């Protein structure tokens, strides 16, 4: 009762002296609930709260065998961290508790990570480094362990163009730091692995429908089936559509440009399909997603307030085989294929009213085979190979009426990677993890990526890790081959080499008492051969070149606490300084500090589950100025018991309607893009 009245006071406060006070008031309101909530709540997540039989029964035997039994009264198991990185896991329960609608919204709550959006795509940044428009290519995005970055832009799609409906995500694993020693290209700042649900997690038919602000509507139908042993099947389809808003852009405020108002151009619609199954030692998966998004910002010198849309289509298919041949030798293989199509329809200013189509098409297939050996005492060795053939990497650009082809480029290629990783148990509670990968491509580029981590368990509650590693990002097809003639045109650069990052990190993992856990990390990185767009003085055309350097250092602190009644808190603070290696100036779009809090509170014997999150990002430079610091608060209320087999949730995003903007990328006239104010979402999920 006290909780509800406290919240009421916060929401109805209209006069605010300083924006920051409101945020603090909000946090205090949540803190007061900890003393008022009653009832013993069941953990919503299989492993984050108390593991109940019902939750555990949905795990496979392989996973159950790995769990530690805590026979004492402590609520936190011995936190044995053997990973050569501070891997963080977000679960399906978190996604539902906090109402994350996209992968980006989930990742933005993690320490050191932040997103930037330009009403077209969403981009991910880490440790103070985010170049808008670089398509998030410095992160490796995996879905169930297979690469989802496309071969044209190497994009890690984290916005609404992401291939999966977030309802189908079982968990998200994020490993910060260089991951090329195992995964090869693009695991530059981190590796994101999104693991999908299985038929057994749905066990029947499930339907979901949601409506939200600006004509946001979504519907999903899923069927999951569980058979004997590991046999499993899941099929799901989601359709989403959003009308969007009319948006005002000061830079285009002239009478002949509709006074700066882009009408009805922030729309989007799409479809996401997933089909997967397991039979004995084999599992297969096919996913397909398509998204059409209106572009209201008139980038690349297109006519303002005229139709401009982008369409992304991606299909991924894979078949996996996994078998323990002996008790010390396991083999995992997977064969995969993919297809990607991108298209942008616009009306460039120089050719209006003639339309222009810019697009790309890629098709690829590959094989990844790795063996895990534990036959040598104290060693766990993984040896593997990753082969991929790109049968097409095409880029095109043409105008219609009259038809004029500006670009029609076709490329093929292949690449091979060989990796080995050994986890060695040393005496005196030391663990050494060493990995090395060699990658070679048909265009002659090759990379060697090592990584070493030394992990030491000081005592039952303290673990320290020292990590050194390098990672690389190959120039993508766009940077290498995209070209068009004429004034302000662009030319290819076949001499582009991979970018390289070297990172050193020191991590301290500390359990504080029974229910609290803290992680502190200090890092430093150096990036060489950073690819940037410049002008070739000889031709006057734009060209991509390995010409920049960047370095960064900082610290991240993350604390998690669980209360007996089931409430949970996760708070993080990060400080980072990222500078240009040549000029020593602080990089654009690089916040100096970030603070995040996520709190989940079960109420009324778990009939109500409250999830609230708060995020503060300090000021960031833009191309010509800066965007001020901002904070955002989101609130989601879940009612899992309101109807049998159903869940009703209500979310308010940017609860305090804070005005904030993200720096805009190249190609945009605007210096920064205003983000949405307060929006709402109502969602109903029902299982049969």
């Amino acid at each position, binding site marked *: 009762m006290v909780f509800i009245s406290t919240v009421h006071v916060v929401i109805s406060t209209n006069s605010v002296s300083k924006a920051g006070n409101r945020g603090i008031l909000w946090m205090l309101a949540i803190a007061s609930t900890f003393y008022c909530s009653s009832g013993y709540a069941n953990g919503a997540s299989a*492993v*984050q709260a108390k*593991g*109940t*039989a019902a939750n*555990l*029964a949905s795990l*496979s*035997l*392989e*996973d*159950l*065998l*790995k*769990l530690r*039994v*805590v*026979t004492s009264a*402590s*609520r*936190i*198991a011995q*936190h*044995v*961290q*053997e*990973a*050569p990185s501070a*891997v963080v*896991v977000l*679960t399906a329960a978190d996604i539902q508790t906090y109402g994350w609608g996209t992968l980006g919204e989930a990742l933005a709550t993690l320490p050191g990570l932040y997103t930037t959006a330009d009403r077209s795509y969403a981009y991910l940044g880490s440790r103070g480094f985010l170049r808008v428009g670089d398509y998030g290519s410095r992160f490796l995005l*995996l879905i*169930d*362990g*297979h690469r989802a970055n496309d071969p044209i832009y190497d994009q890690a799609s984290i916005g609404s163009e992401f291939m999966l409906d977030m309802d189908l995500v*079982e968990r998200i*694993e994020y*490993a910060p730091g260089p991951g090329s020693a195992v995964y090869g290209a693009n695991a530059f700042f981190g*590796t994101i*692995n999104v693991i999908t649900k*299985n038929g057994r997690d749905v*066990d029947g038919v499930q339907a979901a429908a949601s409506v939200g602000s600006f004509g946001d509507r979504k519907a999903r139908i899923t069927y999951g089936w*569980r058979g*004997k*042993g*590991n046999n499993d099947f899941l099929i799901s389809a989601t359709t989403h559509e959003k009308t969007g808003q009319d948006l005002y852009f000061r830079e285009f405020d002239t009478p002949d440009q509709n006074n700066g108002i882009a009408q009805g151009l922030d729309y989007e619609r799409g479809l996401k399909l997933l089909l997967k199954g*397991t039979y004995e*030692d*084999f*599992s297969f998966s096919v996913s397909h997603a398509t998204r059409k998004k209106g572009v209201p910002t008139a980038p690349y010198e297109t006519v303002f307030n005229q139709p401009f849309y982008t369409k992304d289509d991606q299909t991924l298919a894979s078949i*996996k*085989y*996994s078998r323990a041949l002996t008790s010390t030798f396991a083999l*995992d293989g*997977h064969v995969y294929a993919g297809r990607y199509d991108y298209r942008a329809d616009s009306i460039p200013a120089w050719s209006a009213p003639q339309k222009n189509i810019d697009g790309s098409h890629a098709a690829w297939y590959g094989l990844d085979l790795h063996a895990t050996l534990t036959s040598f005492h104290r060693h766990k060795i993984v040896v593997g190979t990753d082969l991929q053939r790109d049968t097409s990497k095409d880029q095109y650009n043409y105008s219609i009426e009259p038809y004029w082809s500006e670009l029609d480029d076709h490329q093929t290629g292949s690449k091979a990677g060989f990796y080995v*990783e050994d*986890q060695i148990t040393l005496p005196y509670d030391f663990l050494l*993890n060493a990995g090395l990968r060699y990658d070679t491509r048909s265009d002659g580029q090759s990379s060697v990526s090592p990584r070493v981590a030394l992990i030491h368990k000081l005592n039952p509650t303290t673990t320290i890790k020292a990590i050194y590693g390098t990672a690389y990002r190959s120039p993508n097809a766009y940077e290498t081959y995209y070209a068009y003639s004429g004034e302000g045109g662009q030319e290819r650069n076949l001499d582009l080499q991979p970018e390289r990052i070297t990172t050193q990190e020191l991590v301290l993992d500390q359990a504080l008492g029974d229910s609290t*856990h803290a992680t502190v990390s200090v890092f430093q990185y150096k990036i060489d051969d950073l690819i940037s767009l410049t002008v070739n003085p000889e031709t006057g055309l734009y060209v991509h070149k390995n010409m920049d350097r960047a370095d960064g250092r900082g610290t991240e602190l993350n604390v*998690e606490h669980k209360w007996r009644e089931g409430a949970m808190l996760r708070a993080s603070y990060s400080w980072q300084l990222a500078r240009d290696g040549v000029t020593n100036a602080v990089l654009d779009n690089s916040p100096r500090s970030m603070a995040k809090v996520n709190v989940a509170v079960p109420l009324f014997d778990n009939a109500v589950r409250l999830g609230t999150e708060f995020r503060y990002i300090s000021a960031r430079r833009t191309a010509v100025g800066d965007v001020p610091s901002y904070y955002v608060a989101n609130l989601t209320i879940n009612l899992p018991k309101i109807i049998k087999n159903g869940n009703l949730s209500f979310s308010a995003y940017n609860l305090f309607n804070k005005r904030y903007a993200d720096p805009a990328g190249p190609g945009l006239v605007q210096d920064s893009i205003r983000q949405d104010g307060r929006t709402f979402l109502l969602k109903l999920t029902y299982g049969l």
Partner: protein
Amino acid sequence: MSVGVVSLLSYLGNVHPVLAQVDETALKAAFIYNFAMFTTWKTQPPEGAAFNVCVSHDSPLRAPLTELSGKSVDSRFWTVRTMPSASDASICQIIVYHPQKDGSAHEFASAVYANSVLLVTDGGEAQKNQAVITLALEKNHLHFDIDLGAAKKRGVSLSSNLLRLARNVYES
């Protein structure tokens, strides 16, 4: 997480870094449910939609096993029943007993049942306790031993996927 999913953790160390608190009896119940998934019963009781899991009324596993009620096994519904006398136990598909605690454990173990039954014990020594599957806690991890001779005697057949995950497999 089905077989074949490549988790980052399988590369980076087989440890789940998320704070995991696992209760012993809940874990045992989850194991028993999984055993059911990997078992084929050669003869079934003729009627009924219930998949009967019989356990004594004061067993610590009774509550977590009951949490799984309604889950489907072989198109029947998981139902937990109090252990009837050995002579009436033919309705059970799974019998869970504790060799040290259940005074009549020996009776269940040596009785002959009209239908196939999966005998699972919590603790005790495999082969001696006459169970098909024996659960054992070793260094804070739960393991299980399989007695193939007992399986044959009880008319159940276990999938090779289950055998490969067992700590010990006895032919007897």
